[in-house]
């Protein structure tokens, strides 16, 4: 089948779009859905039906009134569910707010003050997205359309210029030209490695065909990272277009999207996009009359972290156990089913059409010399605006944390920029950045020199009530559980490291433990087979480097300075507050508390098992936990 004329589709869509009187977009990203946005979506439909207000759920030429749609993730997840009515942007919307929104905003254009975002920094309400620093401080290229368009309607993507670059690549450019443009753009892989994308494509292009593959690595496994999910949920067609251009560049006729099955919404939206693209002949045979074919398969992964490693991912697609293989040969030479294969991550592929659109030269103006373009970060942890941010490469950590994401918070959620202690960047494979790195530009080379990595872009912010030893333990527990078990240092080494960290946080460690831990961490880093093992010790080594005194406090003084490690906590009864009621004595399961009625009680630290029973029983707040 011949590809439908996309210029006509865009024209028809735009002229139909002009007919609508109002547009309501409800965020349908995973975060907002978890917050109940689908109920809000339903409430809008019910309310409009009840009031007999005309609306459509899909733009057609018959649509003359309001257009109600879901969008993909808008990134401002902490404030969800998000709703926009025209330009007016509401946060934390509940179904019960809907009648009022319809009545006042949709019909009369009035703003409902209480639903606006309140900017704590200047104590002002923000009416539109542009008034919110979270958005205004970002540079959204990749995420530009996420949250603005209906991800389940390919026509809207086309109307926004979508697939025009794919068409160009297939009809006006040679494979070599596409590769050249990508090399010129300096785009580096956003999956963590930072390998130049154009170079990777060119290496695959020159390999003998005819069968080659493009794989989209959508196996986003870092705890706290959700950039790829958001792009697939918010603008799946951008990923498909990127894959098409990659296929054109290397001469592939088949592609796979390897997406973890924990992303059901992303899978559904990607599948919908593929189906719609096939119906329009954008995917399939003789694309844009070029005589070239391309089809895309979706492969659901079973959620193994190691399958983000490209050779393990390829094994998994082939139906084998996801275990990394030795490189060389690289996938560009011998990849999926032994054929030359390009494997890029979601964010990289979704950037491709944008680069062709703006041109390599323009693209290079964004970001730094060594790392052009933007990068999305998933910011979580002790931070005011948990969510997804896109900034130019080279933006400093301080700008991301304080300006875009609203600053570090205390445990109770109040903003306290001074409470910043560290940020874990790059997930469990990354390292931690401290106060001294706040003005470090976030790009591939700067982070590498600081002993961290961009990784996939997870950014976990931690305040001063965080125990860094415990953080290292947390990440190591993850990598150990997710190690494929193939090579000795990763399989056995991370387990032993975890044992030592458990000994440290539970008060059994000696200085020898610390020495062994450091030796072993370095050995695992140096001798593991794949990147998972080589980077698994990073959280331990970087916390050891920056927070050694915390380790020493645990090991030597048997004390957790942050008061997090329960086994090291010391429960005490403040004599001035204790009324001698005896409640704690009765609550204690090990008879560690003694004292006469009416007189201050005391806890025998030797018997205490730190269960916390006394503290929760005491009505006078007399039981304290000391570090």
């Amino acid at each position, binding site marked *: 089948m011949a590809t439908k004329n996309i210029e006509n589709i865009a024209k028809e869509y735009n002229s139909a779009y002009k007919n609508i009187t109002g547009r309501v977009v409800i965020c349908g990203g995973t975060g907002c859905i978890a917050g109940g946005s689908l109920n809000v979506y339903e409430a809008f439909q019910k309310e409009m039906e009840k009031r007999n207000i005309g609306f459509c759920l899909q733009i057609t030429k018959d649509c003359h009134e309001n257009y109600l749609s879901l969008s993909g993730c808008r990134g401002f997840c902490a404030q969800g569910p998000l709703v926009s009515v025209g330009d007016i942007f509401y946060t934390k919307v509940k179904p019960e707010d809907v009648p009022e929104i319809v009545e006042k905003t949709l019909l009369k254009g009035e703003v409902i003050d209480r639903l606006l975002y309140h900017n704590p920094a200047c104590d002002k309400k923000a009416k539109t997205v542009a008034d919110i620093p979270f958005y205004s401080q970002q540079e959204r290229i990749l995420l530009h359309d996420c949250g603005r368009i209906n991800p389940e309607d390919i026509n809207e993507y086309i109307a926004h210029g979508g697939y025009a670059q794919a068409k160009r690549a297939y009809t006006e450019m040679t494979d070599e030209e596409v590769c050249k443009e990508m090399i010129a753009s300096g785009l580096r892989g956003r999956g963590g490695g930072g390998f130049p994308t154009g170079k990777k494509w060119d290496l695959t292009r020159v390999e003998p065909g005819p069968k080659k593959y493009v794989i989209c690595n959508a196996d986003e496994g870092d705890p706290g990272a959700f950039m790829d999910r958001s792009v697939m949920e918010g603008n799946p067609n951008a990923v498909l277009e990127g894959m098409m251009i990659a296929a054109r560049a290397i001469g592939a006729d088949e592609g796979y999207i390897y997406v973890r099955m924990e992303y059901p919404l992303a899978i559904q939206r990607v599948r919908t996009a593929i189906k719609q693209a096939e119906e329009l002949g954008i995917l399939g045979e003789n694309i844009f009359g070029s005589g070239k074919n391309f089809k895309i398969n979706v492969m659901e992964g079973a959620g193994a972290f190691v399958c983000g490693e490209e050779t393990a991912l390829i094994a998994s697609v082939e139906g084998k156990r996801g275990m990394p293989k030795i490189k060389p040969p690289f996938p560009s030479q011998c990849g999926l089913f032994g054929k030359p294969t390009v494997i890029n991550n979601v964010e990289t592929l979704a950037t491709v059409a944008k680069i062709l659109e703006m041109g390599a030269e323009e693209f290079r103006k964004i970001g730094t010399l060594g790392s052009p373009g933007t990068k999305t970060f998933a910011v979580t942890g002790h931070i005011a605006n948990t969510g997804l941010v896109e900034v130019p490469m080279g933006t400093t950590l301080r700008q991301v944390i304080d300006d875009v994401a609203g600053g570090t918070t205390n445990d109770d959620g109040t903003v306290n920029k001074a409470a910043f202690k560290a940020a874990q960047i790059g997930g469990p494979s990354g390292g931690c950045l401290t106060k001294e790195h706040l003005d470090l530009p976030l790009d591939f080379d700067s982070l590498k020199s600081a002993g961290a990595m961009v990784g996939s872009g997870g950014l976990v912010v931690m305040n001063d009530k965080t125990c860094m030893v415990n953080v290292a333990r947390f990440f190591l527990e993850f990598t150990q559980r997710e190690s494929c078990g193939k090579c*000795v240092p990763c399989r056995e080494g991370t387990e032993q490291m975890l044992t030592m960290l458990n000994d440290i946080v539970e008060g059994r460690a000696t200085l020898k433990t610390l020495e062994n831990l450091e030796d*072993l961490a370095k050995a695992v880093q*140096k001798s593991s087979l794949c990147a998972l093992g080589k980077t698994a010790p990073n959280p331990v080594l970087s916390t050891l480097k920056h927070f050694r005194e915390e380790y020493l406090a645990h090991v030597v003084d048997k004390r957790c300075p942050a008061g997090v490690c329960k086994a090291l906590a010391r429960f005490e009864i403040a004599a001035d507050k204790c009324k001698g009621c005896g409640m704690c004595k009765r609550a204690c399961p090990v008879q560690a508390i003694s004292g006469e009625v009416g007189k201050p009680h005391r806890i025998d630290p030797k018997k205490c098992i730190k269960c916390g029973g006394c503290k929760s029983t005491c009505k006078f707040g007399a039981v304290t936990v000391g570090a």
Partner: protein
Amino acid sequence: MENENFVTIEGKRVAIEGEKNLLELVRKANFNIVTFCYHPELAAYGACRLCLVEVEGMGIVASCTVAPKAGMKVRVNSDEIRKLRRINLELLLSSGNHNCTLCSKSGNCKLQKLAKDLDVTEIRFKSKKLDSHKDATSPALVRDHSKCILCGNCVRICNEVQGIGAIDFAFRGFRSKIATAFNKELGQSHECVSCGQCARVCPTGALMPNSSEIEEVFKAINNPKKKVAVHIAPAVRVGLGEIFGLPQGQNVDGKIAAALRMLGFDYVYDTAFAADLTIVEEATEFLERFKKGTNLPQFTSCCPAWVNYVEKFAPEFIPNLSTARSPMQMMGPVLKADFEERGGKREDLVVVAVMPCSAKKSEAKRGEFYVDSNPDTDYVVTTVGLARMIKEAGIDFVNLENEWFDMPFGTKTGAGVIFGASGGVMEAALRYALAELDPANARSVKFTSLRDSKVFKEKTITVGDLKIRTAVVSGLKNARKLLDEIKAGKNQYDFIEVMSCQGGCVAGAGQPQFDGWAPRKKRAEGLYQEDTELAYRPQDNSGVLALYGRILDKIGGKVAHQLLHTHYKDKKDRTGQK
């Protein structure tokens, strides 16, 4: 001109001569680095990280996975490498059960050797024993997960060489283990054919042939009510000696006969006798099929793992399998029938077979080979198992005077002896067939092509208008390829010998462990040497001929069929409902 094609290893120039990887060059330079996951017969894997070296400009790399390049400068024993090697070894030793004094593999274990070479006297890590489960459900093999170091050799040989994939890695991280499909016990695995090649490449005691029967054999010997007969397979005589420090491949049948008597066996026989009997039946069966043109090609059926394979994976070829039993399963019923004929009770004769094989253990347990509850072969002991018995009894094997097998079941021809090498069964069968079809020229045919160290061999015999096209294949993946070609009509053979183990029985899982082809060749040569000292044609075995006269009646007759033939079952259905 000076040859520029060399690498420098610890300052020493080593020429690159087609080595696949840097590790082979390092070993060529006489740095005999002990590794676990590198095996010359398998694809490089890069998991054990013990072959780490430092290459100038590349840093630390696993040498097994790096292609040698001229000009490389390699350090094998830098401080850093020594440190990493020790840490990785300590990690392996800290995980699982490595108590050498309580392990049958002691003395022949690579992990033990490396620990000794590196003089590890303490381990800085905590001891972890996750899985202490021992799986002894298979009569052929025992798996001990606590000794497994997850080198993956077993997984790869089962997949790459045998083409089966009965085992693979399961679970993640520290909980990773080698498992069968659905994590069943090996005895319940549908895929395992008991060939035991996994145990042959296991560097530790994690996978070993099941040796539980040794104790039963000792008990039977010491039971005054029982008579115990033992017979040894051809490959055993060229495998056992090396355990006692004798040259690899040396035929020690005379010492074995002596040792077996010292152990207390009542009758000491040679399985080669039954091999002659097998050929008489099997070649006769072939000539009949050949004349009629039915069920061709005929496949040999003396390899029990191959029989398991056909039943489980290629049941459409069951009609092609020879119905003749294997020598071991002919020997059992013949000895018991003979014992009964001489007035004994069947259950009072215990038949012990010494085999180079793990699958023979499961073969003996097949229901077809029982009369009521009494098996034709009571116990199967491997070559290594026999060595253990000899050692336990304190027998000074090396200094034993040669003795001879008991008659009549100790008589044999060279045809029976060469059964132990790949190609030997086919050669024996053709010697028989030629003697029947063209007695005048039978001795002039040479079988050199069938004696090559190859996994696939062919030989066509022409007698008048007749052309007998034969093939010999060893290794189950190679056999699978042949089956597929037959199905696709891509080749035509009349008679095919299949052995599960590459190189035949000399390379069986019950033999002393080895790597590579040289040991297979030496052992096979030991058998071909004995062949030159014996009668040529199987039909010249006087004991066999007498047996037909006394018990079996005529070749391929009713009694012979009952005692010497068997039947097979389609076992492809995994649900077990069929």
